C-alpha cells in the first residue's frame, strides 16, 4: 500500500472522529483517514469506529452489500474491505456465513445469506481439498479430471448464486500455499501440489471467462509480494486463517477495487507532470535536447518505461492528460520533435502547460474532458505539488511516488486505480473518441453556429433492443455513467439480460455515428409498464455517455422511445429523476423534453408525457434501425 501517504497522527485523528457528535462529520473524518496508509491494526480500529455509526444511506456514499462464502476463517477480512470501500466513498456491508457452511447457505432459500440479498458474492475457497484428492503419481489426465470436478462444483455454485440471488460473482484465485516436493523438478510432475494449483487456476480462469465471473487474483498478488506475505502457517494453525492478517489490508483494497469498478468508480484519466516525471531534467532550462529520456541512460530508460506503461493504459481506454508548469510551446515541442518520446501529442487528450496553480489546471482538464475530478490520478515527482493537490482536491488520487523513477511504473500498477470488470471495443476506441471530440470542437469553432455545426456532423443513430453482443457494454454504460443517469440504478449483466428478455419491457440501445466515425454505444433506456397502468410505460432508467452531450441525441432518443411506446399501444410515458451529487446536469431534462411534473418529493421528482400530444422533435440525426 506504498502509494498511500503516511497518516500524520492516526491516533489523534481517529479520536476526533470518535468524539464527533455528528455521524455525518464522523463518517467524513473516517473517509479522509482511510486515504492514508494504514496497518492491519489501525484498519481494525478505524473499522470499529465505523461500526459504531448507525448508517443511513448518506449522500455521496454508495451502499453495497457483499457476501463472502469461504472455506477458511475470514473474520479478519471484512474490516479491511469496509475501510477500502470507505476510501472510495463506498459503504460496503459485508456478510460472512459460518465457516465452511457456504454450500448450505447458498442452497437454503431461508438462510441469512438469502435474507441479506447480496449484490456481490465473493467465493474464497481453499485449494486444500482439491490437492488432497490428487496422488503424487497422478497422470496429467487424472489431474485434469480432478481439477475439472472441482471447477465444475464451483460453476454449479456460481450458477446457483446467480440464479437465486442475481448477484455479481467474484471468485478468488487459489493461493499456492504448498511446498516443493522435489524442488525445481516439481513443474515436470503433473501430480505435485504446485502443478495442481497452477492448472487449477488456469481452468478456473477459463471457466470464469466463460461464465462472466470476475476474479480476485490473490495468486498473482502473492507471486508479486511473496507467499510469506500472504500466507502465515502459524495463523493457519492458530485459527485457520488462509489470508495472513497483514495481507488482509491489500486483500480488502483489491475487493473494493472490483466493487468500485463494477459501480463505475474506477479512475478514468491519468494526469502526468512533465519535468522529472515523463522525462528527466527541466525542459525549459535544459532544452529539448538536454532532457534525459530513452536508451543510453539508466534514468532515461526508466522515464521511457513510464511512457510505455502510460501508452499501454491508453490502449485499454485510460485517458491521458498533461498538467505541467512549463511554457506550453516548449512542452508541446518535446512531444512533436523529441526522437525518444514514445508518447505523442495525439496520445494526450488534454494538455495543460502554464504557470498557474495545478489544482486550477486539473479543474480545467476535467471540464475539457467532461469527467469528474474523482476520475483523476495525478502523477507528479514533486512532493509539494502532490501535497497541494491532496489538500485542495481530496477527490483526486495522488500516489505517493517512490524516490527513484525506476519504481514509478510498479507503484502505479500496485495502486490498482484502473481496475476493470470488462474490456469492450468501446474501451479500445475511447481515447480516439476523445481525440475525435477535440476535432469536432475545432469544427464548431470554425462554423460558429451550433445548428450548422450539428448539420455538418452528418449524424445517424443506430438503435434497437439490447442485444447479446452488446450486453457487456450496455451493463457497463448503466454502471459507469454518473452524469446523464436519470435514476442511477445499477444492474448486473444478468439483470440487464433479463430486462432484454422480458416480453413487457422495451429496451433501447443507441449508437451514434457521424462523419468523424463511430461514437460507440452511447445511450441506453429501459421502459416497463407502470404498475396497474399497462398503457403507461415508465422509464426505469436512461443513461447517456458524456461524450455525446449537446448533440441532440436525447431528443432523438425520446422520439424513438415515443414511437416504440406508441407501437405498444402506450398512452403516456412516466419518468423519475433521482438526483445524486453527479447528475445535476440533467435536473431539467424531463421538463425540457416536454414532460409535466407529477410530484416532487424530497428532491426526486416524477414526470409524465401524454403521447397523444407529443410532437416529434426535429434534429440533425437520422435513423437506422436494427443493424449495428
Amino acid at each position, binding site marked *: 500500500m506504498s502509494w498511500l501517504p503516511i497518516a500524520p497522527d492516526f491516533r489523534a485523528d481517529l479520536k476526533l472522529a470518535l468524539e464527533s457528535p455528528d455521524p455525518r462529520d464522523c463518517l467524513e473524518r473516517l473517509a479522509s483517514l482511510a486515504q492514508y496508509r494504514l496497518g492491519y*491494526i489501525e484498519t*481494525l480500529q478505524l473499522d470499529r469506529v465505523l461500526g459504531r455509526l448507525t448508517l443511513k444511506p448518506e449522500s455521496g456514499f454508495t451502499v453495497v452489500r457483499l457476501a463472502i462464502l469461504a472455506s477458511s476463517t475470514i473474520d479478519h477480512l471484512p474490516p479491511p474491505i469496509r475501510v477500502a470501500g470507505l476510501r472510495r466513498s463506498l459503504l460496503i456491508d459485508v456478510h460472512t456465513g459460518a465457516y465452511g457452511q457456504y454450500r448450505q447457505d447458498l442452497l437454503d432459500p431461508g438462510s441469512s445469506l438469502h435474507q441479506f440479498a447480496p449484490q456481490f458474492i465473493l467465493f474464497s475457497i481453499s485449494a486444500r481439498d482439491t490437492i488432497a484428492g490428487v496422488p503424487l503419481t497422478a497422470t496429467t489426465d487424472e489431474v485434469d479430471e480432478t481439477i475439472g470436478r472441482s471447477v465444475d462444483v464451483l460453476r454449479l455454485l456460481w450458477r446457483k448464486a446467480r440464479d437465486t440471488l442475481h448477484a455479481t460473482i467474484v471468485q478468488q484465485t487459489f493461493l499456492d500455499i504448498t511446498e516443493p516436493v522435489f524442488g525445481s523438478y516439481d513443474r515436470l510432475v503433473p501430480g505435485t501440489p504446485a502443478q495442481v494449483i497452477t492448472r487449477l487456476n488456469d481452468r478456473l480462469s477459463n471457466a470464469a471467462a466463460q461464465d462472466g465471473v470476475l476474479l480476485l487474483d490473490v495468486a498473482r498478488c502473492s507471486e508479486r509480494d511473496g507467499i510469506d506475505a500472504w500466507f502465515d502457517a*502459524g495463523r493457519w494453525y492458530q485459527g485457520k486463517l488462509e489470508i495472513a492478517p497483514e495481507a488482509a489490508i491489500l486483500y480488502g483494497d483489491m475487493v473494493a477495487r472490483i466493487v468500485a469498478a463494477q459501480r463505475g468508480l474506477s479512475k478514468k484519466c491519468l494526469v502526468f507532470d512533465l519535468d522529472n516525471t515523463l522525462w528527466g531534467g527541466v525542459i525549459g532550462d535544459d532544452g529539448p535536447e538536454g532532457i534525459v529520456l530513452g536508451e543510453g541512460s539508466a534514468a532515461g530508460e526508466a522515464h521511457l518505461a513510464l511512457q510505455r506503461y502510460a501508452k499501454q493504459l491508453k490502449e485499454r481506454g485510460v485517458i491521458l492528460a498533461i498538467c505541467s508548469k512549463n511554457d506550453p510551446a516548449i512542452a508541446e515541442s518535446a512531444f512533436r520533435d523529441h526522437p525518444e518520446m514514445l508518447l505523442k501529442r495525439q496520445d494526450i487528450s488534454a494538455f495543460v502547460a502554464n504557470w498557474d496553480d495545478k489544482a486550477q489546471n486539473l479543474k480545467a482538464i476535467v471540464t475539457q474532458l467532461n469527467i469528474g475530478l474523482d476520475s483523476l490520478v495525478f502523477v507528479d515527482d514533486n512532493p509539494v505539488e502532490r501535497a497541494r493537490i491532496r489538500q485542495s482536491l481530496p477527490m483526486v488520487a495522488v500516489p505517493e511516488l517512490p524516490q527513484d523513477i525506476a519504481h514509478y511504473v510498479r507503484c502505479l500498477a500496485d495502486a490498482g486505480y484502473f481496475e476493470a470488470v470488462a474490456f469492450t471495443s468501446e474501451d479500445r476506441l475511447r481515447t480516439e473518441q476523445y481525440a475525435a471530440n477535440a476535432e469536432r470542437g475545432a469544427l464548431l469553432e470554425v462554423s460558429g453556429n451550433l445548428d450548422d455545426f450539428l448539420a455538418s456532423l452528418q449524424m445517424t443513430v443506430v438503435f434497437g433492443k439490447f442485444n447479446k453482443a452488446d450486453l457487456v457494454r450496455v451493463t457497463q454504460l448503466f454502471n459507469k455513467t454518473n452524469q446523464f443517469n436519470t435514476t442511477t440504478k445499477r444492474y448486473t449483466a444478468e439483470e440487464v439480460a433479463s430486462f432484454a428478455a422480458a416480453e413487457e419491457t422495451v429496451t433501447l440501445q443507441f449508437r451514434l455515428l457521424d462523419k468523424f466515425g463511430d461514437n460507440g454505444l452511447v445511450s441506453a433506456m429501459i421502459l416497463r409498464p407502470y404498475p396497474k397502468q399497462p398503457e403507461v410505460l415508465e422509464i426505469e432508467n436512461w443513461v447517456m455517455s458524456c461524450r455525446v452531450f449537446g448533440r441532440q441525441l436525447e431528443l432523438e432518443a425520446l422520439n424513438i422511445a415515443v414511437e416504440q411506446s406508441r407501437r405498444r399501444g402506450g398512452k403516456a410515458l412516466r419518468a423519475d429523476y433521482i438526483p445524486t451529487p453527479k447528475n445535476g446536469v440533467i435536473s431539467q431534462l424531463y421538463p425540457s423534453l416536454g414532460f409535466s411534473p407529477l410530484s416532487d418529493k424530497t428532491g426526486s421528482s416524477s414526470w409524465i408525457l401524454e403521447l397523444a400530444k407529443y410532437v416529434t422533435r426535429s434534429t440533425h440525426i437520422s435513423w437506422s434501425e436494427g443493424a449495428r
Partner: protein
Amino acid sequence: MTDQEILNAFTRILGDLLLDDSIALSMETRRQDVPNWDSFNYINFMVAVEIEFGVKFKVADIESFENVGAIIAETKALLQ
C-alpha cells in the same frame, strides 16, 4: 524494557483494538476477564504485539499463555 512498560504498552494496544479506554491489564489478567477479548481479537492482539515489538511468537506459546504476565515474560525473552 521493564514488565511495567510492556504492560502499559499491552494495555494501550488492547484498549485501541477494542476501542475501550476502561481496560486495565495486570500481570494476572486472563483473556476471559476482559469483555470482547474473543479468540479473533486474541489473534489480533498477538499480531499487534508482534508488529510493535518486532517479535514473532511460537504457535505452541500462543495457545498456552495463561495470562498477560506469561505473554510479557515471553516478549521479554524474545527481545533479548
